[in-house]
């Protein structure tokens, strides 16, 4: 399980025209431990969760999410994007232990 921590995917529509407001779906593998649980042996499981997500489009930061361990394991998030230029859409997830995980998808327009 832990081997997959930080594996992330971003999904956007196959066909995008300039000016479309598209739906972006993202998922990252992460345990999102609250710190309230214990192992079967009774040892506390420390809090371990994604605390910040930064979204950039081209060179511009367009969104930033502040999360707590109240987001479910393997966090999903979707949001919209006005596709007004071609370029990378990048997301960087940072966890409370300093781990950072990055994924990008290229926004390119379909020829009419």
């Amino acid at each position: 399980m832990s081997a997959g921590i930080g594996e992330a995917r971003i999904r956007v529509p196959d066909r995008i025209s300039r000016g479309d407001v598209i739906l972006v779906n993202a998922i990252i593998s992460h345990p999102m431990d609250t710190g309230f649980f214990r192992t079967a042996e009774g040892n506390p499981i420390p809090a371990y969760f994604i605390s910040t997500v930064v979204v950039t489009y081209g060179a511009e930061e367009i969104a930033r999410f502040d999360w707590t361990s109240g987001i479910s394991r393997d966090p999903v998030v979707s949001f919209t994007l006005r596709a007004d230029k071609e370029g990378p859409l990048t997301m960087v997830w940072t966890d409370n232990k300093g781990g950072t995980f990055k994924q990008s998808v290229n926004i390119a327009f379909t020829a009419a």
Partner: protein
Amino acid sequence: MLARRSFLQSCGLAVAALLGSGAIFRSERLLAWAGAAGGPEDPEVPNEEVARILKNLFGNRPIRKGHVSLDMPAVAEDGRVVPVIIESDLPMRPDQHVKGVHLIVDHNPDPHLAAFHLTPALGSVSISTRIKMKRTTWVRAIVETSTGEVWADYARVLVTLNGCG
């Protein structure tokens, strides 16, 4: 989805019939969306912590009900994974936009569960995710605009399996 949004903006309630299996739930949400500005139906602030969160975020500005739709199941059988959809019909233009969306779960250990800081580049406000819930409680989706307005929607969710430990 976008066709639906513009339709919502133009004629509100009539769209409910088009939404298939979710129609009843959606129509309740839409009524809330179109509803009056604040008032007796708003959930009471349950404790000092939530009061402090609201005060820190919004000061003394009124939190009015409207322009926001918080979609959650009425019953969450597994509190570890509860879907949330937050939408708003407020504009996302450079001169006027939603700059923050706050998700507050009254009776969770950490009630201010998430904040989504947005810019006009998103084109609209339509955010979905999945959250953990400890027990039955009100959930608040509160948005703040670049002009300082604060709008909200609320959902009461019955939780049968504690998802927070």
